[in-house]
């Protein structure tokens, strides 16, 4: 403070300050990694410190201290915060990349035309070969039917909540949507199992599985659609109403087209989310080793239950097939995500 005021008195103002050289953080990072490796090989790991954590700590403390001495407190805090943000970002991303890489490597080892077109019919668990065609067809049918059930109900419920719902009924629907969001997926399966399968309304089948998946999709679709409808500016609704357009047409022709790209994204994401559900399907579709195109009769395989089935058999060949199934499932979800992005870009309101 004293220096600053003295400078101000003489009329000279410094706009530059002392900074660490550009190479300093990189050098410090290299040194930190060195320390980490040293810990690894010197056997001081008795403290339970992993080398990565040691390296990160050395870097954090070293950089903050150096910066504090050379550049001052503000820069030191800035560098500390920046480093923390990047570190947590890497930490959050690491498991995802790890999973993707592992699944890709292990899954690719069994990928073959036969694996994609074959089924598990008459394949001994100990033998290599077989395929997941029956599971892929099952997933397509079950998720497709679930979407056919849940999308119209979910989108219309969201439209009711945002555009028309007032008072107690809207409040209760909104409340129960929140409750539904928290339903564990196995409970949805259990519900369909006791309510429809044990009572003999349905046999274990793709349709029963689709019902369970639809229950899980509903709250996701309602919430996503609600969010999208709420960000449509009220001025557009008023602009259309003031032209003498009835409310239902305002919703149908102005509000929904404006929000449609977001709604489609939400729907696709909800589909992607239930495509990987396993527990409810185990209770409703059971397991199958061959292709069943009929959703209302007989057990039907699906990608998640295929993975579960193969893992539980425990043989090397079966576990390999499980990895292949996992890769196929991830690719399927990836395609859905990519499709959602493309479709939403196509429908988004254009400004030029």
């Amino acid at each position, binding site marked *: 403070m004293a220096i600053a005021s003295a400078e101000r008195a003489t009329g000279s103002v410094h706009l530059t300050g002392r900074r660490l050289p550009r190479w300093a953080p990189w050098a410090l990072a290299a040194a930190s990694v060195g320390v980490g490796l040293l810990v690894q090989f010197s056997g001081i790991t008795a403290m339970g410190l992993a080398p990565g954590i040691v390296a990160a700590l050395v870097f954090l403390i070293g950089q903050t201290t150096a910066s504090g001495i050379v550049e001052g407190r503000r820069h030191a805090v800035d560098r500390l915060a920046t480093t923390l943000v990047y570190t947590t970002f890497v930490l959050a991303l690491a498991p995802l990349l790890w999973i993707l890489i592992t699944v890709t490597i292990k899954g690719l080892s069994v990928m073959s035309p036969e694996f994609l077109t074959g089924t598990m019919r008459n394949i001994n668990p100990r033998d290599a070969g077989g395929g997941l065609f029956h599971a892929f067809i099952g997933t397509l049918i079950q998720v497709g039917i679930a979407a056919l059930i849940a999308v119209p109900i979910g989108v219309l419920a969201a439209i009711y909540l945002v555009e028309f719902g007032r008072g107690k009924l809207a409040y209760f629907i909104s409340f129960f949507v929140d409750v539904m969001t928290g339903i564990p997926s196995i409970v949805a399966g259990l519900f369909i199992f006791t309510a429809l399968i044990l009572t003999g309304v349905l046999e274990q089948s793709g349709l029963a599985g689709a019902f369970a998946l639809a229950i899980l999709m509903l709250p996701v679709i309602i919430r996503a659609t609600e969010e999208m409808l709420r960000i449509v500016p009220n001025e557009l609704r008023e*602009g259309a*109403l*003031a032209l003498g357009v009835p409310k239902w*047409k305002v919703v149908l022709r*102005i509000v929904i087209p404006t929000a449609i790209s977001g709604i489609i994204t939400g729907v696709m994401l909800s589909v992607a989310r239930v495509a990987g559900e396993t527990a409810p399907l185990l209770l409703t579709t059971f397991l199958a080793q061959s292709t069943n195109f009929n959703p209302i009769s007989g057990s039907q395989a699906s990608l998640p239950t295929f993975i579960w089935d193969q893992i539980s058999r425990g043989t090397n060949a079966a576990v390999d097939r499980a990895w292949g199934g996992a890769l196929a499932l991830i690719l399927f979800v990836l395609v859905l995500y990519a499709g959602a992005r493309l479709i939403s870009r196509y429908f988004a309101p254009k*400004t030029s």
Partner: protein
Amino acid sequence: MSKQIDIRDLNVYYGDFLAVEGVNLTIKANSVMAFIGPSGCGKSTLLRSINRMHEVIPGAITKGQILLDGEDIYGPNVDPVLVRRTIGMVFQRPNPFPTMSIYENVIAGLKLEKDKSRKESMDDIVESSLRGANLWAEVKDRLKRPGASLSGGQQQRLCIARAIAVQPQVLLMDEPCSALDPISTLAIEDLIRELKDRYTIIIVTHNMQQAGRVSDNTAFFNISAVGQPGIMIETGPTSEIFTKPQNQQTEDYVSGRFG
């Protein structure tokens, strides 16, 4: 073609809150009426109640009468949708429909609610409406472009074209120039003077020079305190309101002594 509006003992509420109290006012056909007054005095609320847009807000109601050539727009069996077709509105912020082209924006009101008595082709309606809004020359070569691609002033004139395309008899304008630059404002003020031949126009404005330039009559509104209802203090020919107002509050406001 255009119609006279008589407002009688009108109270406008938001739920229990009385926002505007006891308004009695006549707006003659083919004239421009300006509503002026400080923020929060209920000008916009009153304006919105004239085409029943006020009640779109949950809990918002009105009591009293608004007569359109003698017919109460709040009468039993009156369809608010039909009221809004007869009494068009232009909002403070330009709000073209983002999913539609310029062309589609102009005919949005017609396309969304078909009027079978109209014989002209859609192309003719688009051209005459855009000409009416002084926008035709600027956009005639790019009617298929999105409405949102226009500048703010052009968007507002597009909204005016959209409002006049459904052939209303009264046009309500809620601070139509507050988001615009002086040149766009001038274009819209010129437009208001032209539109007067065919429509009855009510304009809310914070700009007293604007009220002086475009309106025939002016109504001044005020509130005694925050939380109190807005009331109409005085109305009369614009020249008189600005030069020799009857009420001290009006004189203070128009001479810039408060607010």
